[in-house]
């Protein structure tokens, strides 16, 4: 019988690996998720017959699963596409919390002098799981705008964080070397929760996807550690897979943004953001605006229009409005394409998902490499709530934080139209000279409003 369970866990691990492989390619990604889910069903199916229920145990398992499944399903189904990162953060935090609680329960059963090979992974799981839990909640709060998205820093912050970490190490030693008593490992948990909060507070809201990915890897490692405590193969392998792949993914994500992971996590310390200063310094320069009607005429009589969607489009939920405008223009014989920058928006693939949701046909979505040579032939580039991804400073100003990042060549088009609310810079906090370009027309206002007005004006044109 145990052999059967072990084989089931092995099968589950194989399915997880195959699922991950499929998830790495667009064509098979959705199947990959099913494959992994099948692995999960098998692992759980092999677990249930191994359980010895107490009366209370049966009740809490039943109720717990029902509650968890409902919360998970409803949360996952209701969430808006733009809010997916914070939803993932919540789910990830839940996993981290569960890992910490499992480890606490295990330590309770071991008595005050557990063997080191059980106690060590347990305290690891408590610390890492709790950091992941608390950190994920802060990430959620930042993204959901329950709190400010700007980095929260204060003098002496690094010292405070250092002290928390030192206290954690002290308690770890206490549990392992002196006595594993509830006071010690509960203190450990509380301190780790505080550390989790302190870790994420100084990181800006826009960097949250990277942080969530890192915490995701943390949870994986905590789960693997629980596997060592429980001597459970499935937990070890699945947790390690997530820990390893999640770490690499975190690196790939910060690479895609043209930044180092170090800079993402600790950039707020000792570095003054230049947002305000840079924006102020250029106040003297003038920009060109235009009436909605003139813009509509320009668009309607163009041969070729390229739309560059960015973070502001997501915020304004303007994807359907932008599609309406594009459809209208196409009916008038204008050739319309969307140029998707790899890190447009606030999470990788953000724009692809949003535009797909708005049913924009696949062929109209062009990756950066594919379309960058075509901007020079475009009559109008319509930049909707994007900024950094078209900032020529990435090519021209070696001092700029985004220098070296490949950008969309919007500046090569005959006309550039920006739909944004103000002259404020984008995520990178640096001014964009393209806004002041003689070829550029600004249309201030919320992206969705502006687009709706444009649609009406084009209809009239």
């Amino acid at each position, binding site marked *: 019988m145990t052999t059967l369970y072990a084989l089931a866990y092995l099968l*589950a691990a194989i399915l*997880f690996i195959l*699922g*991950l492989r499929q998830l790495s390619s667009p064509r098979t*990604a959705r199947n*990959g*998720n099913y494959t*992994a889910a099948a*692995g*999960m069903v098998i692992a*759980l199916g092999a*677990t249930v017959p191994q359980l010895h229920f*107490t009366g*209370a*145990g*049966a009740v809490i398992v039943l109720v*717990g699963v029902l509650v*968890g499944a409902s*919360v*998970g*399903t409803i*949360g*996952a189904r209701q969430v808006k596409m733009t809010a*997916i990162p914070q939803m993932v953060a919540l*789910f*990830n935090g839940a*996993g981290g*919390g*569960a890992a910490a*609680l*499992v480890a*606490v329960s295990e330590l*309770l059963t071991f008595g005050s002098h557990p063997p080191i*090979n059980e106690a060590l992974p347990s305290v690891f799981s408590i610390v890492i799981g709790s950091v992941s839990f608390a950190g994920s909640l802060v990430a959620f709060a930042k993204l959901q705008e329950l709190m400010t998205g700007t980095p929260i820093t204060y003098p002496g912050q690094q010292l405070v964080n250092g002290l928390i970490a030192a206290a954690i190490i002290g308690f770890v030693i206490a549990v392992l070397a002196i006595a594993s008593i509830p006071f010690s490992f509960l203190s450990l948990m509380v301190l780790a929760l505080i550390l989790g909060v302190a870790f994420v507070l100084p990181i800006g809201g826009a960097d949250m996807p990277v942080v*969530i990915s890192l915490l995701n890897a943390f*949870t994986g490692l*905590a*789960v693997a550690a*629980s596997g060592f405590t*429980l001597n459970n193969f*499935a*937990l070890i392998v699945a947790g*390690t*897979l997530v820990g*390893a792949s*999640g770490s*690499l*993914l975190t690196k*790939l*994500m910060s690479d*895609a943004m043209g930044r180092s992971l170090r800079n993402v996590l600790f950039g707020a310390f000792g570095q003054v953001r230049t947002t305000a200063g840079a924006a102020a310094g250029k106040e003297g320069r003038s920009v060109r605006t235009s009436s909605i009607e003139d813009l509509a005429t320009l668009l309607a009589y163009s041969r070729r229009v390229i739309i560059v969607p960015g973070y502001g489009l997501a915020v304004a939920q303007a994807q359907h409005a932008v599609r309406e405008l594009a459809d209208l223009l196409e009916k008038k014989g204008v050739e319309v394409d969307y140029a998707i920058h*790899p*890190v447009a928006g606030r*999470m*990788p*693939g953000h724009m692809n998902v949003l535009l*797909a949701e708005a*049913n924009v*046909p*696949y062929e109209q979505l062009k990756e950066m490499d594919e379309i960058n040579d075509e901007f020079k032939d475009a009559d109008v580039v319509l930049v909707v709530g994007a900024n950094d991804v078209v900032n020529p400073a990435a090519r021209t100003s070696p001092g700029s934080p985004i220098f070296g990042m490949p950008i969309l060549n919007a500046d090569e088009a005959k006309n550039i139209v920006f739909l944004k609310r103000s002259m404020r810079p984008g995520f990178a906090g640096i001014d964009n000279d393209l806004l002041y370009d003689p070829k550029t027309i600004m249309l201030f206002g919320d992206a969705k409003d502006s687009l709706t007005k444009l649609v009406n004006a084009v209809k009239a044109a």
Partner: protein
Amino acid sequence: MTNELLNELTFFVLAVFVGIEVISKVPTMLHTPLMSGTNAIHGIILVGALFIAAGANSPVTVILGFLAVVLATTNVVGGFVVTDRMLEMFKGRQAAAKTAETANIK
């Protein structure tokens, strides 16, 4: 070091390599779904939570066990469902493209 620990260590090491290699060539577009998918996989902690909760025999373990099961189940179920919703969009895209093609043929 016990034999068991040795084996577990080996599983760990091999899984590290598998995890890293499998991911090493994923396109940016899929970063978010992949993060979400792996997030669902570590919901396997539910297996551990079930062992704890099923054997709960004191108020403390009942509370711990219950919380662990709720959190872990949320992780698993929510993780897979939300990943599927994201990837549905991608599929929808290709389906949309197909519909468009069929429309063109007519």
